[in-house]
């Protein structure tokens, strides 16, 4: 409200203009891009940074001593500093670059969980997890004889915190929770869950894929042990992401991938590994991608994450009201703390038909299971349609979306 709280002035129209793709037409209509939870669009600054990297600075970061190599290394490692600051990590060395959240969680599954788990142990997840925060644990359970436990949610899509806490019994060796649901937008009370885990000595992994583009992240305030993010959802290039983990975990974890860059010395008899984070970063990374991710972080900082959150929550309220006016529309997920993600169905209309027909009107929404089969099973539907909004979306777009929905409904009825 006051300048002290929101110091960065927010000019939504100017910000929207930063995204070249948003001026595209689809099927002869101006695009309404409401598939942001799937992947976000990129601002000119990110696109231009990648372009400029390839045009002027491209080199490998593998310890080249030439000028191009030093420029590339400085830009690439600069992103580690930016990311550490973005999530308020205590140290840049705790930020491990990965190709995305899926890679980050699998790294924890193979390198942290696997050596620790034995039959009788469990991993606790929730009913609203993305497959990326289910299947790696199923696979490690299969390899170790451990089991998965599932914390239940309410029909509104809120985690039942007391049940979660009750399930934190001594057999639980790791808890893994999504920060913001990609299907129903629920923002989980991570700090509260982390306190409960911590007092029982259980490490907590947080899947922050959907949080990073929408709200301020402070891993120290959250109090978790692992935090995973993915670059392409936070306006950065595809093929980028990170795992933040407490130093003590990274130091205790054995290396995962073997290769260049993660060693101190190799001989056929004995190989000595580098310190974290490089121990976990074998091979040539997605250099241009991470340089672009640095630009995305700068960009978010410039827009102001608090401006984003405030604007999006107003847009969410507007869109929720607008959707409620559509006859026969069922909304999934009504958590009190909720990001701008709206999953829905219209009575008698299949999600795919909705998505295809909305696309004919220029409106891009996702339909399907959203990589969250268990949540679909919870709601007893095979699929939903999902509109997921970003700060560059507008009320006018919401209006066009709702008008298109009405048109589709009439056609299919």
């Amino acid at each position, binding site marked *: 409200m006051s300048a002290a709280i929101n110091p960065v002035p927010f000019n939504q129209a100017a910000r929207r203009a930063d995204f070249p793709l948003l001026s595209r037409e689809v099927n*002869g209509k101006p695009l309404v891009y409401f598939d942001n939870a799937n992947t976000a669009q990129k601002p000119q600054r990110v696109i231009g940074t990648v372009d400029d990297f390839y045009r002027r600075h491209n080199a490998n970061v593998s310890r080249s001593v030439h000028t191009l190599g030093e420029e590339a290394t400085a830009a690439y490692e600069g992103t580690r500093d930016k990311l550490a600051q973005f999530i308020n990590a205590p140290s840049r060395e705790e930020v491990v670059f990965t190709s995305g959240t899926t890679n980050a969680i699998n790294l924890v599954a193979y390198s942290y969980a696997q050596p620790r788990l034995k039959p009788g142990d469990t991993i606790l997840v929730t009913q609203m997890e993305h497959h990326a925060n289910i299947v790696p644990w199923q696979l490690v359970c299969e390899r170790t004889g451990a089991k998965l436990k599932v914390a239940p949610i309410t029909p509104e899509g809120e985690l039942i915190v007391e049940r979660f806490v009750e399930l934190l019994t001594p057999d639980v060796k790791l808890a893994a929770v999504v920060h913001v649901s990609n299907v129903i937008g629920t923002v989980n009370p991570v700090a509260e869950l982390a306190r409960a885990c911590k007092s029982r000595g259980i490490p907590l992994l947080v899947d922050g894929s959907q949080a990073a583009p929408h709200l301020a992240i402070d891993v120290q305030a959250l109090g978790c042990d692992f935090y995973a993010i993915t670059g392409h959802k936070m306006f950065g290039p595809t093929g980028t992401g990170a795992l933040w983990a407490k130093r003590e975990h990274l130091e205790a974890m054995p290396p995962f991938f073997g290769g260049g860059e993660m060693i101190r010395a190799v001989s056929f008899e004995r190989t000595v590994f580098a310190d974290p984070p490089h121990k976990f970063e074998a091979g040539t990374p997605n250099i241009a991608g991470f340089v672009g991710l640095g630009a995305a972080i700068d960009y978010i900082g410039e827009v102001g994450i608090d401006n984003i959150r405030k604007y999006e929550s107003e847009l969410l309220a507007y869109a929720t009201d607008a959707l409620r006016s559509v006859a026969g529309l069922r909304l999934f997920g009504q958590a009190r703390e909720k990001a701008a993600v709206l999953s829905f169905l219209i009575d008698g209309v*299949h999600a795919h038909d909705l998505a*295809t027909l909305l696309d004919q009107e220029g409106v891009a929404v996702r*339909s399907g299971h959203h990589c969250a089969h268990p949540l679909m099973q919870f709601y007893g539907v095979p699929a939903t349609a999902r509109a997921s909004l970003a700060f560059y979306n507008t009320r006018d777009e919401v209006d066009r979306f709702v008008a298109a929905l009405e048109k589709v409904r009439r056609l299919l009825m």
Partner: protein
Amino acid sequence: MSAADLYRENVLAHNREPRNHGALDAHTHAADGANPLCGDALRFELRVADGHIAALRFSGESCAITIAAASMLSERVTGLDAAAIAALRAQFDALLRGDPCDRDALGELAAFGELVRYPARRQCAQLPWATLTAALNGAASATTEKDSP
């Protein structure tokens, strides 16, 4: 609406009132089909006599494309034998790929030629075929995964 080319009147009509919908008592063959794109499920039950389809019914919750395709298919293949159905399926697959095909033989099913422009939805129209073929072959289940773009 410009999608009227895909969701044209006869497709919508088959979706609203599918022919041969339901279960078939005393069926000789049956199979369950799944579309991994969305988790949709479809069931075909058939009565085969003398190698020809004497009757068939389908059920399951699916999108309009799948239901209309299943409905049209059910009408088109009644009375045919496996070889004729396989030949027709080849024509249908060619149609979806945009390759030359015998539209007359396909009859109403030719409506799905519009799917050339909707590659992600092709599986929806292929699911009934995959399920029917599985049933004829004595398989219990089918998926369209291999047919995905």
